[in-house]
């Protein structure tokens, strides 16, 4: 555990040094956030509420999703894949640490710094432009923090699994692009899942993707309370367990066939 935090801290500091990239990324995130807010406002067209979500909540949703985009990082992460192709994987596997935990520790550092620097800044700037919705009850804040943490873990476990494809094929990037590409819509990042027809939501719930974004959104906006809230958190835990087990099995199979090129 000590080792885990040491790696997390290093990763945190490493990402802290990319200041220019952070500012540029922030501007891009904000631009797309404003664009998405305009589209949602135009869809509402002065209607006060659609599918239980008010315009104000819809605007808040665009800010919140843009704020956590780099935190959950589900739309492209190829670091592990790259380490397999570089051969760095050989050294990583020799480290006195579980391979999954080794990558997770780095990802937690990366995620936390991005949430603090980019996430909070985006929400603050959003609050200057729009009238936002904020969580009120202490229980809601508690649930939100748990959901955010679980969302990162589920997202990481999924990314870990996808990246393991590099053990089988010399060009797993295409697989990655597809696996990460479908998350935009299915996770509820592109539009809140509540807007969709029931059959589509049911379909989404059969995938781990809503646990990465939609659960956080619905808890933040206060759309989930009581048993529904508990159910959503449990679903995140369930997906986390499934993905960790799947990742473990796939890794074991992959290690059987891993060939490191010398050099």
């Amino acid at each position: 555990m000590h080792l885990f935090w040491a790696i997390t801290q290093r990763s945190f500091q490493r990402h802290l040094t990319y200041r220019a990239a952070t500012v540029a990324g922030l501007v891009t995130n904000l631009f797309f956030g404003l664009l998405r807010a305009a589209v949602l406002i135009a869809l509402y067209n002065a209607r006060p509420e659609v599918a239980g979500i008010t315009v104000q909540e819809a605007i808040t949703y665009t800010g919140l999703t843009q704020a956590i985009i780099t935190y959950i990082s589900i739309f492209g992460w190829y670091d592990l894949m790259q380490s397999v192709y570089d051969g760095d994987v050989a050294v990583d596997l020799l480290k006195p640490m579980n391979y999954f935990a080794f990558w997770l520790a780095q990802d937690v550092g990366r995620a936390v710094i991005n949430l603090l620097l980019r996430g909070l800044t985006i929400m603050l700037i959003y609050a200057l432009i729009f009238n936002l919705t904020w969580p009120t009850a202490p229980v809601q804040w508690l649930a939100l923090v748990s959901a955010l943490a679980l969302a990162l873990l589920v997202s990481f476990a999924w990314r870990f699994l996808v990246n393991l494809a590099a053990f089988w094929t010399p060009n797993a990037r295409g697989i990655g692009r597809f696996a990460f590409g479908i998350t935009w819509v299915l996770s509820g990042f592109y539009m809140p899942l509540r807007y969709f027809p029931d059959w589509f939501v049911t379909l989404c719930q059969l995938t781990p993707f809503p646990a990465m974004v939609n659960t956080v959104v619905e808890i933040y906006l206060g759309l989930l309370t009581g048993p529904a809230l508990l159910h959503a958190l449990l679903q995140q835990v369930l997906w986390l367990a499934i993905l960790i087990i799947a990742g473990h099995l796939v890794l074991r199979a992959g290690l059987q066939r891993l060939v490191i090129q010398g050099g």
Partner: protein
Amino acid sequence: MWFTVNIYRRLIAVQLKAQLQYRAAFLLEIAAAAITLFMFFGALALVFHRFGQLGGWSLAEVAFLWGLVELAFGLMDLTFSGFDPGDFGQRVRKGSFDQILLRPLSPTLQLLGADFPVRRLGRIIQGGVILWIALALLDLTWTPLKLAYLPLVLVSQIGFFGGLFIIGATITFWTVESIEAINIFTYGGSELIAYPMHIYPAGLRRFFTYIIPAAFLNYYPALFLLDKPDPFHLPAWTPCLTPVAGFGLLGLALLFWRFGIRYYQSTGT
């Protein structure tokens, strides 16, 4: 002229040959790209059921904007990929742009032939299908003028985004690192004009009309082709500005590019 065409054809042929080595992987990637991109429009269509309209426009009308710009951007990405600011920045950093300057052939032509990513077909297919659906649903009254105007709009958009790519690439001569902010104009601009311009706050709309003239490339052509009134009351000849904005930006970009090459200092790697 014939020499140029011939060289370009040969550069592209080499690219195609290399990319078609792994045929199954290649086809799979195109299909995957088309599916992922199509999911966005599919999702918008599903959500439209709840809302019924977007800023007063029907789904088919938005599909027209969306399909046209996606098709144009895909075609642009296919041809101008050598200038993609991210990739080009890497070329400057690694010094491989020096190689290009040493060859007895126009650097512009070499870069146009340097990359021809056929997997962009996914985006082209997606854009084409959505545009085709939109045209089928819209039941437009076609006149010879409109029939001639639509392809002109498509080519103007390709020139416009190609020009933005070239400007982004040229800036890396000075910054070395590719600047992420240019993505706001290229990828951001293409996303922005996939929706009707009147839904945006005035500042954003004016910026993308008068400073970056993106509004003239998709919104005004759509108003003309779909016989819709202009909520901002610009003159009736505004649709004529489409090729002016598209090719004008491309022309300026090429001038800037030549200026950049003249002042280019290698990184020395």
